[in-house]
């Protein structure tokens, strides 16, 4: 086996170990590489930053534990930003029932950090199936879809919900998701009721939603762990996403190196074979 064939046939388990090491070492010994903020993240940040204390938003945490690594830091970043500015937050989770646990985890953690009270500063609506129908009914009245909050309290007894009837009383709807429910938010809430929509998505899906950003249907877009790290930088609260960026950079450099080695091996190997054939 010549050197080119060896380059192309490295045991994949060695590659896995190298990727794992490239991720673990920066976690243990941070490199503190700089994070530059993209305009799509900045637009969402500036929109929320322009809101006044007491104004309300709807934050739909439509992710579950399988996409928690990317979406949870985004959720915490936006919640911290809102609570820091005194913006009231309605939280729901419409994609899957297992998203409720992660949504509540993010909400209670941020609320504890900023000493915010349930019912006064935030309300957790819970989950309802058939997200399209729920979004349409929320456009008429939140109480149609959610007569009670997640903890069973009637919406009429929640101080924060006085004066909030439907999307017209909210400044923005932000959805953080690892599924295609963002299309549903854009189509139903944004298209039908005209409420501004912001989104945080997993990196796999990010390229699919730039079309909404370009057409103005999305106010801003957080893409993957990098988007969450950029938001943490803007709110000056570095957390898990920022810690993950060093490992992300190192792993990406390693993958680029593997791709280059593989392609060099392929091209030179082909040339060597054709030369040998002649």
């Amino acid at each position, binding site marked *: 086996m010549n050197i080119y064939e060896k380059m192309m046939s490295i045991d994949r388990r060695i590659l896995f170990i190298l990727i794992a090491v490239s*991720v673990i070492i920066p*976690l243990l010994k941070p490199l503190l590489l700089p994070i530059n903020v993209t305009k799509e993240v900045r637009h969402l940040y500036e929109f929320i930053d322009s809101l006044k204390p007491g104004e309300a938003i709807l934050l739909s945490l439509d992710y579950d534990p399988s996409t928690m690594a990317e979406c949870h830091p985004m959720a915490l970043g936006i919640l911290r930003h809102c609570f820091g500015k005194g913006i009231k937050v309605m939280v729901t989770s419409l994609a899957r029932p297992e998203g409720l646990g992660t949504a509540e985890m993010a909400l209670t953690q941020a609320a504890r950090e900023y000493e915010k009270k349930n019912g006064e500063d935030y309300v957790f609506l819970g989950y309802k*199936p058939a997200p*399209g129908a729920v979004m349409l009914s929320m456009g008429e009245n939140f109480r149609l879809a959610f007569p009670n909050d997640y903890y069973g309290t009637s919406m009429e007894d929640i101080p924060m919900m006085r004066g909030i009837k439907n999307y017209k009383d909210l400044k923005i709807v932000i959805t953080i998701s690892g599924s295609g429910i963002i299309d549903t938010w*854009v189509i*139903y809430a944004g298209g039908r009721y005209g409420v501004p929509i912001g989104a945080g998505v997993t990196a796999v899906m990010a390229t699919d939603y730039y079309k909404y950003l370009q057409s103005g249907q999305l106010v801003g877009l957080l893409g*993957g762990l990098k988007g969450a790290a950029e938001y943490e930088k803007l709110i000056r609260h570095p957390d898990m996403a920022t810690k*993950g960026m060093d490992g992300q950079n190192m792993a990406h450099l390693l993958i680029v190196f593997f791709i280059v080695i593989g392609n060099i091996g392929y091209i030179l190997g082909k040339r060597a074979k054709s030369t040998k054939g002649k």
Partner: protein
Amino acid sequence: MSTDIGVWIAAFLTLGILSFLYKDNPFYKVSESIFIGVSAAYWFVYMIYNVIEPNLLGNLQKGEWWYAVAGILGVMMLFRLIPKIGWLSRWAVAFMIGTGAGLNFIVYLQSNVMKQIRGTLAPLNSIGNIMMIVGVITGLIYFFFSAEHKGLLGGAAKVGIWFIMVSFGASFGYTVMARISLLIGRMHFLFSDWLGLLH
């Protein structure tokens, strides 16, 4: 190191799933089976107590009897599993498809067609706008199969395929980033929550 039994179980299951990268083994199979079983059980129990009970049984108890129609349609869906009366499920599916089409048709057309076309009608006053318009037009030409791709049409289709390949490359790069992010999340859990080595 954590003293929480839940963290230890999660760590064991994480390492069990990751062990598949070496080769298939009983630890991986046990972890995978636990994941599938717990997911199915969680969904089932949650659906009974948080979807069917409040939305169907709760409304029927309040005397809103027309919810029984929804219940009957739901049961008809399950008839799919019985070959002799499986045809009844088509009625329930037809109802769902009709409702979905009716709800989606106009708003989808507005959001995903009209607004996208409007967004593409950008002034040719920047390189980004020019590239976007050229990419959209040549990409659409690539998918126009009613004429042979030769001459001017063929040239435009070739440009279109380059734009499409660049977008696939961007998608692939983002996908790699997503997978690495998930790995970072699991490593952070193992080294922080389980082993307590990170602060």
